[in-house]
């Protein structure tokens, strides 16, 4: 009775790790490919755990204009950095030929940024005759979108 320890029987007690390694490698490769694709533009510390922002698939579209403000000193559109006074022209150019209901500029601002910097960006946007702003924020997980 009892377990046989160190017995010299023919059973091999090693775990076969080959399938696990397979799966892990596949995971690794997928994440390597997907991560740069998912992120457009610069990374911004967006406001998180919000209850009521509406979903908007247009944010992810290539044609929409997103002003990113990761910190107090920079403005980005896409991956390009622009000074504040050049921002207006870029927005104007990218907004050309859009229907009135599509004339919305999204702002991705970090939570630590001063509201004054965001206001500067909004002022520039307003000068291009755009009065709709989308403030991008992450919804809290598990909360349904408001109707």
């Amino acid at each position: 009775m009892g377990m046989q320890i160190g017995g010299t029987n023919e059973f091999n007690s090693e775990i076969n790790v080959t399938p696990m390694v397979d799966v892990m490698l596949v995971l690794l490769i997928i994440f390597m490919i997907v991560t740069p694709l998912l992120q457009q533009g610069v990374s911004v510390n967006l406001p998180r755990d919000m209850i009521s922002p509406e979903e908007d698939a247009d944010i992810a579209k290539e044609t929409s204009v997103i002003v990113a403000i990761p910190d107090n000193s920079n403005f980005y559109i896409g991956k390009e950095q622009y000074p504040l006074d050049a921002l207006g022209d870029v927005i104007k150019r990218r907004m050309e030929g859009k229907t009135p209901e599509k004339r919305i500029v999204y702002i991705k601002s970090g939570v630590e940024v001063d509201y004054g910097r965001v206001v500067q960006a909004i002022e520039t946007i307003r000068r291009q005759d755009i009065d709709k702003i989308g403030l991008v924020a992450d919804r809290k997980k598990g909360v349904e979108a408001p109707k």
Partner: protein
Amino acid sequence: MGMSTGSSDGATPNINVTPLIDVLLVLLIIFMVITPLKPSRFEAKVPAEPKDQQNVNVRPNPLTLVVAISKETKGITLNNEPFGDVSDTDKLSNRLREIFKERENNGVFREGTNEVEKTIFLKSPKSVRYGDVVKVIDAAKAAGASPIGLQIDDLTD
């Protein structure tokens, strides 16, 4: 010569599908995790730039709701009455809900439409963190406010 088809030798030509299923399940799980990360946003409106002539005859609208954030105390005021602060926005959203409910019952509509007037304006000093401003917007939106106007002229530092 030639291949022997249908011969009855001992080896059975079964493909081992277990690793394939492993990999596919992992893929499935990854996509299930990634998909809910749909982007979302708060829509806000910006009032038109004020005209040069200062003495425009604007009748103050008694229905206007102005939410303001104080720079020092981070307190929130609604039409100059204090309602909590940025770390506790429940007071504000409860009060806004009450107001909107009352307006619905009394049939207070936006001029020229038959929608209940739920416009709010947000005013915040320039040095307030953007995160705090968004929290207040979130509370207002959760209470049903729409549209939200961001006042960007004549802000204090």
